[in-house]
């Protein structure tokens, strides 16, 4: 209990540090976003008025506390380029990115798990060698390049999947939430589901491949160790096949070390969405982030970066807590 409390406290501290860094980095930016917003004929008085409206005429410390006070109440300020509430814009884009990230995670676990199982069942054979080779290759190629390779091979040369956007414009479903994939499933609107998945598959695969290699490596390693343990041998002696032994006995115990790793690596995957979304013109947070930077939209950049940091930190926290809950050795009375 105490350990969990300390963990929460350090998380809060890290989050505060992140907020300070984001704020400071953005405020030292050269270039006046206000001057850029106004038409060339604007007078100095106009500029001052607008600057006051955005609170940019106060001292840095004052601005920081106004901003952080707002953030704590859920108010992230007003976007300069889109002239809308930052919180609303950012939360509007969040579901697209979350759906992409979780779909990618799903693919990575599926692919990595399958590779680990094959490598374990055929250990010391050519199949294990092939799995290792594939892992080495997928690991050394980053998501950006995978995305390009998929666009080229599965989007253009052999056009299996669409390569830009989140959904075909013709469909344009009128849904209550931004979680289009989830909502289309709940509404049994499978035409929309299929279209969404087709659009998401290539970017998700690009994000998933490096992670799947990590999962395959670590899971295979711990599976191989577990498969040599006495209790597994006992199951073998009782006549269970190698496959049954692996799935019924070994997998559950071997999965724990992989879990922590998946958590850490999942944060990298979320980070990767920024460029992969841009590559595939997918309308999520990452795409929005790049546009915000190009437009020098300070409040919007602040909101997005902070949200990404929160996602990162929350993922790590959840993994730590899940690990503690699943690992009996770490359970405190």
């Amino acid at each position, binding site marked *: 209990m105490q350990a969990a409390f300390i963990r929460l406290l350090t998380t809060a501290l890290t989050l505060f540090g992140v907020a300070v860094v984001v704020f400071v980095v953005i405020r030292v930016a050269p270039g006046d976003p206000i001057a850029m917003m106004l038409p060339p004929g604007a007078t100095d008085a106009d500029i001052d008025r607008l600057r006051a409206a955005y609170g940019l005429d106060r001292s840095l410390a004052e601005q920081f506390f106004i901003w952080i006070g707002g953030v704590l109440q859920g108010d992230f300020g007003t976007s300069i380029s889109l002239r809308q509430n930052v919180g609303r814009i950012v939360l509007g884009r969040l579901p697209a990115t979350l759906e992409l990230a979780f779909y990618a995670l799903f693919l990575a676990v599926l692919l990595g798990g399958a590779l680990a199982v094959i490598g374990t069942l055929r250990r010391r054979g050519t199949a294990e060698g092939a799995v290792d080779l594939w892992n080495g290759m997928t690991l050394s190629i980053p998501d950006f390049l995978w995305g390009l390779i998929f666009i080229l091979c599965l989007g253009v040369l052999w056009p299996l999947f669409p390569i830009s956007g989140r959904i075909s414009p013709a469909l344009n479903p009128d849904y209550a939430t931004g979680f289009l994939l989830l909502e289309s499933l709940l509404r049994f609107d499978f035409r929309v589901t299929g279209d969404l998945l087709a659009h998401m598959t290539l970017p998700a695969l690009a994000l998933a491949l490096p992670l799947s290699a990590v999962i395959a490596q670590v899971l295979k390693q711990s599976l191989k160790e577990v498969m040599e343990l006495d209790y597994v041998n006992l199951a073998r002696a009782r006549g269970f096949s190698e496959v049954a032994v692996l799935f019924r006995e070994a997998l559950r115990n071997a999965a724990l070390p992989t879990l922590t790793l998946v958590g850490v690596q999942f944060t990298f995957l979320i980070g990767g969405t920024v460029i992969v979304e841009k590559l595939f013109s997918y309308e999520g947070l990452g795409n929005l982030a790049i546009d915000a930077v190009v437009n020098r939209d300070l409040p919007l950049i602040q909101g997005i970066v902070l949200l990404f940091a929160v996602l*990162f930190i929350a993922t790590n926290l959840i993994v730590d807590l899940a690990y503690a809950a699943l690992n009996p050795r770490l359970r405190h009375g």
Partner: protein
Amino acid sequence: MARLWLSGGWLVLLALAAIFAPLIAPHDPLAQDLFLEKLPPFWMEGAEPGYYLGTDSLGRDVLSRLIYGARVALIVAVLAGGSAAILGSVLGLLAGYLGGWTDRAVGRLIDIWMSFPPVLFAILLVAVLGTGLSSVIIAIAVIDWTRFARVVRAETMAQSRMDYVASATVVGRSPLGTLWHEVVPNVLPTILVLLSLEMGITVIVEAILSFVNLSVSSDDPTWGGMIAEGRTQIHFALWILVAPMVALFLTVLAFSQFGEGLKDRLDPAAS
């Protein structure tokens, strides 16, 4: 062994191409010729002699741009990778060796740093610093020092507990003297391996930044800029995208394989 030579060979070739770019490149990488736009590479029908890899949508020679693009990629790899290595290693060494509040401060800093998605952080910093080569280099160094600091810190801690460090202290070396003369030589192989891997990462990050038009000015040839152009022409002229992709792919692979090969070579027990 083979991969060390293969990957090292490609990197040397690339370095030579980058250094002697004005001598090797068949054309001016910036020269536009709208009569020669989207020429295919030499093995396809309709190719023009002298334009081996074809031309882009403004009629610029793809091969020449590729060669000049190698300059930007390698300059960033060496300078940004090197700066990140120095910054991270110094902080890691001090944290691991001194322990106490230095260690806690560096550890917290690493935690905060790692809470940002690196690519987003890079884009943010370049936006703040203004586009340009020096901004890209500074941004990468400022972000990626943690990769070195984390590992070097752990390695230094392990080394500091060894007997030879204790005996150096007993013989009367100053703490910083011990760190420099005894610990650093033992941590150096790890740093070199990390540096090779890091250089591969910097090449990708530079390509990403020039892809979103935040690196050097958009006229200068960069692989990322060429990829961005190729992405828009993908249905009309595939080679504009393929050429820089292959160059980027081989270079990234070479750096990571060189690092892995180096690791096996320097520390056979670990592999």
